[in-house]
């Protein structure tokens, strides 16, 4: 599929209207606020705010969601710099350089660079997404059930890389999620499975209430157990844009990190936190002054922030072109697309090519909105961190319940949210990662339905699964990904542990 410049310009024209720009700005502002609040992740933010898009036209809804996504990725830097608490896991590497800078009175400089680096990374990620997605989807248009099954298996093979500390627990969470995805009508014969006789379970657990429960309600239960001391921000924020010298000094890292971030984002399963840590590590390795790292080196801050924002563009590539989410946030976005009647993947390019280009345009404009809103509201966002937890935490629960109920006006969805909230809390407490469940809920039905369809075509002959070259290629990729993930898991873990130790040290200092 060739890149369609005419459609690109008309999409920018469609997005560049007051209504859509307003939605992008609302989403970006909400995203920055959510990202800035420690404990509230981008995944949670999108899950919590998806209900606000119910009943809105697709372009309005998706523009707003793009804004939330981009804003939340940057917002994490605010609390990382000002109160040494990363607002999102992706901003953990930012703390190591951002907070020491704030401590020596350079909070304004750090905030300005974090915002600019986020903008720079976001723009590069969005540009790569715009040109890479149509190309990948054109290959995917040839896919049949066999290729889709292989694609789902490839997507599932990355569960190991998002397994957190324990590989076994990650695999258990993944298979548990796949079993949950098997609840409801069997995709071919329509036989109801594991429904306990409940009509509401016939279509499986509702996706949005399930993820609101897993990512928002579980966090509420976690948050209420902490003592509610709100940190005060005393930093002076007097700079809105980084100086020309700072941009020149960090330019090489900005370019390198934005590419690293986009590529890591495009790998299903790897999110902003991994992108930020790897870019930070690479920046330190390549730096002429590695001894300055950990003591407020602006280059390290730029690398981390640039990577975690460019990651969002990268993560959209597999989502849009293959229908496989690149990280947890895009998995939630996939749910939001489905609610709008859009199924991400190659068919989206065939049936709703206009929407695809409008998403490219809104992703790009969201970066500009983030830069301007970030500059204009720098003082306000710094105060957001001080919001009273005694009010915020219960309010998040109410919003979660409302969001779960609003989609179908069905109280069963509220109970689903609560049940998954409790499950999510228990799993997090005992170190079982939640992201594999999310990935499994999306890829499980895709794997099963296409496996069964392939079997219908072949009359039950399993050799059909290795009869097509693309499918064989994807299966080989899945095996390589599995082997590399298992071998790399320990290495990455050791490196992350080393980085975290540095982070702990920086916090202790």
């Amino acid at each position, binding site marked *: 599929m060739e890149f369609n410049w005419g459609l690109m310009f008309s999409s920018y024209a469609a997005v560049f209207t007051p209504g859509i720009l307003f939605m992008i700005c609302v989403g970006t502002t909400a995203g920055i606020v959510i990202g800035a609040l420690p404990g509230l992740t981008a995944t949670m933010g999108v899950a919590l705010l998806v209900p*606000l898009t119910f009943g809105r036209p697709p372009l309005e809804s998706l523009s707003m969601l793009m804004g939330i996504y981009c804003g939340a990725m940057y917002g994490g830097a605010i609390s990382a710099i000002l109160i040494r608490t990363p607002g999102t896991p992706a901003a953990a590497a930012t703390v190591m350089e951002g907070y020491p800078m704030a401590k020596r009175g350079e909070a304004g400089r750090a905030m300005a660079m974090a915002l600019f680096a986020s903008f720079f990374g976001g723009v590069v990620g969005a540009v790569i997404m715009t040109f890479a997605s149509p190309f990948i989807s054109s290959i995917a248009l040839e896919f049949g059930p066999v290729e889709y099954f292989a694609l789902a298996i490839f997507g599932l093979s990355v569960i190991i890389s998002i397994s957190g500390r324990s590989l076994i627990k990650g695999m258990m969470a993944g298979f548990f999620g796949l*079993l949950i995805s098997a609840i409801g009508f*069997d995709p071919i014969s329509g036989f109801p499975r594991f429904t306990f006789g409940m009509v509401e379970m016939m279509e499986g657990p509702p996706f949005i209430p399930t993820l609101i429960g897993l990512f928002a309600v579980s966090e509420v239960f976690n948050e209420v157990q902490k003592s509610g001391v709100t940190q005060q921000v005393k930093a002076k924020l007097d700079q809105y844009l980084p100086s020309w010298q700072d941009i020149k000094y960090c330019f090489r890292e900005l370019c390198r990190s934005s590419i690293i971030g986009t590529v890591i984002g495009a790998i299903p399963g790897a999110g902003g936190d991994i992108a930020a840590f790897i870019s930070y590590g690479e920046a330190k390795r390549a730096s002429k002054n590695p001894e300055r790292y950990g003591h407020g080196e602006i280059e390290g801050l730029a690398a981390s922030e640039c990577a975690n924002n460019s990651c969002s563009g990268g993560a959209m590539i597999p989502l849009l072109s293959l229908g496989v989410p690149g990280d947890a946030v895009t998995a939630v976005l996939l749910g939001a697309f489905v609610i709008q009647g859009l199924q991400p993947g190659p068919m989206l390019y065939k049936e709703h090519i206009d929407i695809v280009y409008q998403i490219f345009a809104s992703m790009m404009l969201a970066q500009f909105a983030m830069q301007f809103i970030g500059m204009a509201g720098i003082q306000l966002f710094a105060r957001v961190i001080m919001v009273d937890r005694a009010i915020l935490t219960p309010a998040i629960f*109410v919003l979660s319940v409302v969001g779960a109920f609003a989609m179908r*006006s069905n109280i069963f969805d509220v109970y689903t949210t609560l049940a998954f909230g409790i499950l999510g809390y228990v799993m997090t407490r005992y170190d079982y990662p939640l992201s594999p469940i999310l990935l499994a809920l999306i890829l499980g039905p895709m794997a099963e339905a296409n496996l*069964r369809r392939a079997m219908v075509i072949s009359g039950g002959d399993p050799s059909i699964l290795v009869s097509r070259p693309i499918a064989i290629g994807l299966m080989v990729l899945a095996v390589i990904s599995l082997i590399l993930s298992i071998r790399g898991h320990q290495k990455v873990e050791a490196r992350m542990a080393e980085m975290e130790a540095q982070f702990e040290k920086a916090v202790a200092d």
Partner: protein
Amino acid sequence: MKIADIVGGLVGILIGLYAIWEGTKMPTDVVMKIGPSFFPNFLAGFLILFSVVLVINAVRGKSKGTVEPMRLADKGVQRGLITLAASLVFCVILEPVGFIPSSIAFLAFMMVVMGKRKPIPILIAPPLITVSVWLVFEKILNLSMPAGLLADML
């Protein structure tokens, strides 16, 4: 973490066994060779396998990480349990009582649970948050919230 891992592994094994048992009640497919039970059985098998590995690792003392024990005397744990009970009550009364009254009551109660003692914020914040959420969902997004006791007024 050792005991927690053993319990977690046993729960995984039980879930897997339940899925396989349910699978025995599903019809078999003569055309495709694999019926509705194939996929769940396959997944359950792997869940059981990894759960067994987790239990064996835990028994051999190879569990990773630590977990803080839950003590009822701990204020945080008490807050957690109260929140759980309050959330359940909120969900149960949501439809019969209605969103506005139940949300105001839940928010006010939770603010007290989380340490707020000054009456003015407790009196102002819950109605303000509730009405804002209601206005956005009911009036702007046209999504209906349970009216409950206020059905005649709204």
